[in-house]
Structure formats: structure tokens, C-alpha cells
């Protein structure tokens, strides 16, 4: 197991270097420089332009800029945002908890609905329920997030008035961040009205962000279930006369879960990318919207720093999933 963990971690280093290269070069591949964009129609003199580029270090050869970037990264310094002049890591970690909170709730929603739906669809393969789940999940999977979000807002917030339109908490509540997680902070401060408001604000964005993972999880669970139900040991269990709920709930589900866990782990990356759109629609103050703004402004340090941090998070989560997986299923460990 130890050896397995070491190899998994060792693989991460080149991946990390690769990410730094991609994060660094992608934003620079987009034409346009931050200074010209900052000036807009108003324009900027050639001298002032050159001076600003020099101050930002953008006049130096690319490999030198990259070297500075990566050396700073290894010292834990991601530089300062061109726009706001505040450290990138400070901006990132102030917004990150909001994204994590939203993603976790979305994942929770996806698993809570997707798993049972998948199991039932697998058990009732070919029946009406199975077909409905498959159709709905296909629709969910192909749902454009932007459209889906607006639709839910118009229905539940606009017409029915059940949920607030957007934001993380009602502006009437004054919550100083402790952990940055609104649900936890409101409880820590003993403000139940604020907690209630935070929950109500979370519902729609979590549903929107969780829709695609839900569809993926439901489909994955269904096919894993169908496969497992065809195994010999299930037939043996049936032959022994075990009640169906025991066969499905204990014997089949446990084995069917193995691929499902992997898929859930992989959703983390998907959640972050979905968060970009969801956060924009719901005015959710997370890193997704922040990254998009930074790209529009060619804020090089924010984009490369932000991408690096997001990629690192995804890598770490996947590492943990890998390790857990190796723990659950010893066959994986010996395979390599």
C-alpha cells in the first residue's frame, strides 16, 4: 500500500509542472495585452505602455517570465493581480470556500438522488422506471447550465417566490467570515435566521450545478448494477433464497459502488468547471466567476495562479480517491 501511495504521489510532480506550463502559456496565447485593454478607447501613449509592461515584467522573454513564475510558485508566491494589486492567493482563498461549499452541496444532491435512482433503474431494467430515469438523466446531462439556471430562477424565485433569486445570503444579514463556509459561519455565530437564509440561497445553485453529475452518477450506477446483478454470486444468493432487498442492498450494491466511487471523484473537476457558469448566473462569490473576469482582463497572474490552484485541488482530490480506492479494492494495488 505504501509503495502504491508513493508511486501515485510521484506521478503528481510532472503533472504539476505540466499544469504550470499550461496555465502560464494558455493565457498568453490569447492575443491582446492587459495594458491595452485597461486603456480601452481612451488609449495610452507608447511610452506609458512600455513602462507599465516593464513594471509588470511582461516585456521580458517568455522563458524568463516562466522561470520567475515557477520559482515564485515553489516559494508559495503566486504574484499580485494586475487589476486589484492584491496577492492572487489572498483573493483565491477568500473566494474558494464559497465554491467548495456550493460544489459539496451539489455533489451531495447528485449522490442523494442519483445513486438510488441508478440502483432502482438497474434492478428494474427495461421497465418504465428504468426508461424514465435514463431519459431524464440524458436530458440532465445535456442541459445547458446557463439556460437551466435561468429557468429555475424564473420558475421558483420569480413566479412561485419560494427561493431567493441569487446571492449567497440575504443582504440583510451581516456575517463576518470565520471559516468562509456560510453554513458553518452562521451556525458558529448562532444566527439561525441567517443559516436559514444561507440554506435557501444554496438550493437552486446546488441543484443546477448538481444536475450533470447526478445524471452521470445515475447512469454509472445503473450499468454497474446491471453488471453485478448478472454475476454468479448474485445468482447463488438468489438460489439461497435471500430476500431481494438483501441481495441488492448488501451483495450487489457494495460491488457496484466501486466504479461509482471513481466516477464521483472525477466529478470534482467537472464541478469546478460547472461552477464557473453557475456562479455567474447566481451571483455566487466563488472562484469561477473570478477566473472568468481575470481572463477577460488578461490578468495574467490571477489566471495562471488561479488555474494552478484549481488544478492542484483536483489532483489532490483524485489522489485521495485513488488511495481510497486502493484501500477498498486490493486488486487495484497489485495491478501496477
Amino acid at each position: 500500500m505504501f509503495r502504491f501511495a508513493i508511486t501515485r504521489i510521484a506521478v503528481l510532480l510532472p503533472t504539476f509542472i505540466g499544469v504550470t506550463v499550461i496555465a502560464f502559456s494558455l493565457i498568453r496565447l490569447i492575443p491582446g495585452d492587459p495594458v491595452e485593454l485597461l486603456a480601452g478607447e481612451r488609449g495610452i501613449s507608447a511610452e506609458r505602455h512600455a513602462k507599465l509592461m516593464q513594471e509588470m515584467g511582461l516585456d521580458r522573454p517568455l522563458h524568463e517570465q516562466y522561470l520567475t513564475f515557477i520559482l515564485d510558485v515553489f516559494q508559495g508566491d503566486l504574484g499580485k493581480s494586475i487589476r486589484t494589486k492584491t496577492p492572487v492567493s489572498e483573493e483565491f482563498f477568500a473566494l474558494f470556500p464559497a465554491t467548495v461549499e456550493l460544489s459539496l452541496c451539489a455533489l451531495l444532491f447528485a449522490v442523494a438522488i442519483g445513486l438510488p435512482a441508478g440502483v432502482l433503474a438497474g434492478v428494474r431494467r427495461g421497465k418504465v422506471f428504468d426508461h424514465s430515469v435514463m431519459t431524464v438523466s440524458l436530458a440532465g446531462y445535456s442541459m445547458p447550465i446557463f439556460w437551466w439556471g435561468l429557468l429555475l430562477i424564473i420558475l421558483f424565485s420569480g413566479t412561485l417566490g419560494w427561493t431567493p433569486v441569487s446571492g449567497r445570503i440575504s443582504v440583510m444579514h451581516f456575517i463576518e467570515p470565520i471559516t468562509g463556509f456560510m453554513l458553518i459561519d452562521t451556525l458558529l455565530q448562532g444566527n439561525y435566521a441567517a443559516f436559514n437564509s444561507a440554506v435557501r440561497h444554496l438550493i437552486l445553485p446546488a441543484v443546477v450545478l448538481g444536475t450533470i453529475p447526478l445524471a452521470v452518477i445515475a447512469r454509472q450506477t445503473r450499468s454497474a448494477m446491471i453488471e453485478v446483478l448478472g454475476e454468479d454470486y448474485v445468482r447463488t444468493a438468489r438460489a439461497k433464497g435471500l430476500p431481494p432487498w438483501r441481495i441488492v442492498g448488501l451483495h450487489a450494491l457494495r460491488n457496484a459502488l466501486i466504479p461509482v466511487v471513481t466516477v464521483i471523484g472525477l466529478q470534482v473537476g467537472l464541478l469546478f468547471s460547472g461552477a464557473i457558469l453557475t456562479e455567474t448566473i447566481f451571483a455566487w462569490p466563488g472562484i469561477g466567476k473570478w477566473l472568468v473576469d481575470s481572463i477577460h482582463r488578461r490578468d495574467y497572474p490571477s489566471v495562471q495562479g488561479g488555474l494552478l490552484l484549481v488544478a492542484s485541488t483536483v489532483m489532490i482530490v483524485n489522489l485521495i480517491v485513488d488511495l481510497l480506492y486502493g484501500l477498498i479494492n486490493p486488486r487495484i494495488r497489485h495491478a501496477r
Partner: protein
Amino acid sequence: MKRTLLAAATALAVGAAFGASAEAKTLVYCSEGSPEGFNPQLYTAGTTFDASSRQVYNRLVQFERGTTNIVPGLAESWDISEDGTVYTFHLREGVAWHTTDNFTPSREFNADDVLFSFRRQLDPEHPYHDVSGGGYEYFNAMSMGGLIDRIEKVDDYTVRFHLNKPEAPFIANMAMDFASIMSKEYADKMMEAGTPEKVDLEPVGTGPFQLVQYRKDAVIRYKAHPDYWEGKAAIDTLVFAITPDNSVRWQKLKAGECHVMPYPNPADLDAMRADDNIDLKSQEGLNVGYLAFNTEKDPFKNVKVRQALNYAVNKQAIIDAVFQGAGRIAKNPIPPTIWSYNEEIEDYPYDPEKAKQLLEEAGYGDGFETDVWAMPVQRPYNPNARRMAELIQSDWQKVGVDAEIVSYEWGEYLARSKRGEHETVLLGWTGDNGDPDNFLYVLLGCDAASGANRARWCYEPFNDLLLKAKRTADKQKRAELYQEAQVIFKEQAPWITIAHSIVFEPVRKVVKNYKIDPFGGHIFYGVDIEQ
């Protein structure tokens, strides 16, 4: 027992909170984005000014709310020397600074604060010059550095600005956001504490509202400045609920989660008009969208060709298709909200026959090939440049002119058109200070002919009028000069003036006395809520 006490205390606290909120007036504004910071000297975005200069700070002179007129601010009055190079400001006494968590002012506003605010931007040796990255782009863009020779403190309540040359628009520049006045005492204290950048993040101003809390991408909270020199604001708490998507902003407004919202989606306008709780306000924007001919290149050196192509364009069709009602035809290079706008000017009517005739006279009876550059982005003065370019292309085709549509990434577009690589280019301008000079000289003056003047048009009779207006302090006389200049402009036709946008702002009906700011800002002093 303990539990009962706790319950009683909670009930009391809740009661107190409700009691307070019933009396306190809170206005919620669904703003479109996060400010870059809270020092208007350092940034150029309207979103930043809304959050800083327009609520927290004052300037020596200010724009009267809802107009482009200059009125006294922190200066009660000002004199201009005979030769137009010395401006003496007489400062207002008894102006209180905000008291915040990390600053309690020991004195009122005085001349030292004015000197501090301008020297920081002007003098590279000033201890604050490099704080927070120290780019003063707006100050530089308005050429304030080259204009101001020195600033002199005559006494505690008199400040004198010595200019290098007479420049009448200077007074309008002094009402702009970057000219906001900051506290020197606060700055000194923060410098001593080793945290000078706090001045730019936790602002202390003299304005009607003071900052209480800011959460990036979520919320900005202000409270009314109790000792504000114009009188305490009618609303007690001002909240910016940051909501980037315009359709979502509308849903929030409709649901009563906010009172005012900027930049509605044109598709929602009809629903806003139909809603009984909403008052949809509108005003012409302080902008102009235009097509500039590169007058350094053939055939656009020829004035007849420029006039012909003016006749060839059906502007009404463009307004209908591109602006969908949120625009009006522009006949002058300045918008009608700016003083000296020449009502008398007659625009080139849509007349393809006349166009063909003029082309014939110019020796281009068989037409020619050219390009139309279309911006890749939405701007206030042009919501869809690509569509606009297509309409112009087809209009020109009818008079025998073949135009190819060209586009680049926005930064690249600006840079290349500045270098004059285009033959004709679509662009526009949003005014900075409401002065006609800010459109006419900046966009059409000889000095800008290799920069912001995309027509690269330098026409002496026109330019002379503008220079004369710069040296004239009398507003009436200046207005006459600019009106004359507009006549020459129309005759010479370096541009096709296309449109001024119309700005819409839906406001809930409980909000009283809200006015659209012609500069595109959002100002909440003077606004009240009916409860």
C-alpha cells in the same frame, strides 16, 4: 432558569433588530460587478467609481446630479486668472471626515488634503506615489501631469493650481472621479503604521456614505455619514448586492430583492414597462458610436467620397436592427446631453442616388473596394458592431462600394486602428467630464491624429476653433466656437456619426428621486425610499 434567560435575551435582541430595521431605511442596489478597489485615482472602471468616488468621496467641484453642469463641491467658489492659467479654489469649512474602525479624524477637511490628493498622482517622489501599484491612468489620460505646473497652498482654505497653458476644460476635469479628495491625516497615520495600502482599501472620505463592509463578488455595505456637509442622506444603509448577470438582476428587482439595477437586458425592457412596481427610467447616454474614414488613405482623402458614403447609409435601419429601440440617430459628434450641442445641424439623409452622383463627381463612378472594421466586443455605443458592419456593407454595395468586414481581438483592434491600418473603422466614445472638448478635441483634434483620432483627420479651420475654445474661459463664447466647429465637421464628414445609445434603468416605485447620471454612474445621495 438559564434557558429562560437566554430565550428572553434572544427575544429582546431579535426585537431590537426588527425595531431598528423598521425605522432604518435600506436601499439595495444590484450592481454588476466588484470594484477593483476603493481608490478612484488608481482605476478607470465605472464599477469602481460607483463603489468609491460616487458614494464615499467628494471633489472640489462636482457634477450636479443628473446633469453635466459643474457645481461647487468641497470648494465653495473658484477664480480663474485673466490669462486662464491660474485657478484659485476657496475651500469649504466645516467638512467632516468619516470616522471608521481604524481612523478617528482629529481635524476637518482643509488645503493639506487637496495637496495630498493631487501630489500623490502628480509627483513620482511623493511617498504615496507607488503605493498599491501606483498607476494613475485616468489622471494621465486626461494629461493632468503635463497640464499642472504646480499646486500652491495659500492658506488652510485656499489652494491655487498653476497650469502650463490655458485650458478651459480643466475645471470639468476637476469634477472627475480621479480628482476625489482623500484625507492626508489618515494617509499619514497609515504610513506610520506601515500599512499605507489600507488608504486604498478601507477608504475614509467626506462623502455621503461610508464603507462598512466589502465581500468580493458578494456585497458592499455602506452607512450614511452622520455629519455629511450637505446634510445626512435620506437612506441609512446602502447595500450593493453584486449580481453579474443582467437577467438575474431583473429577477431580483422584480422579486423586491433590490431597488435599483443597472444595464438591463434589452429583451427584458417590455416586461419592465409592463410591471406595476417598476419605473423604467431612460436617458440618452453620454456617448457616440461612429464610423471613421482613414483620411490619410485614398479614396477617403476626397471629401466627396466621405460625403457620398454618408448619404449611402440608412441609419434608421441600423438603429432598428442593432439598437432595438435603445438608441437614436447621431448627427453630431457630441451627444445632445452636452452643452453646445448644435441643434441646427442637418444630417445627411439616406439618399443612394445622391451618393452615386457624388462618387461619380469624385471620379469613383465605378465604385471601389475597401474595408469596414467591426469591434469584437459590445460597447455602450454599439451593442453589435458585426451586425452594424453588415448593414453598412450592404448599403454601400448598393452604390458600388465593396467593403470587406475585418475584426481583431479587442486590444489588438484598438492598437491596430490607432496605427491607422484600417480604411474605415467602427468605434465610439463615452464622455469623461461632460465637456465638448472631451469629444471634439480628443477624437478629432490634430494632436490626436495618430492616436484617438481614428479618422487621422487634421483640418486647420476646425482645429483652430477648438484651440481657441480651450483658451476661452467664458462658457457662452466657448459654446459658440464648438457650434461652429460642428458645422465644419458635418461638411467635411471625417466620420459617419451613427448613434447615441439610450440608457435604461429600472427602479422600484418605492424609490423616490432617483436620477440617471449622464456619466453612467449610480449615485444614491438625494435618493429616498417610501416605506
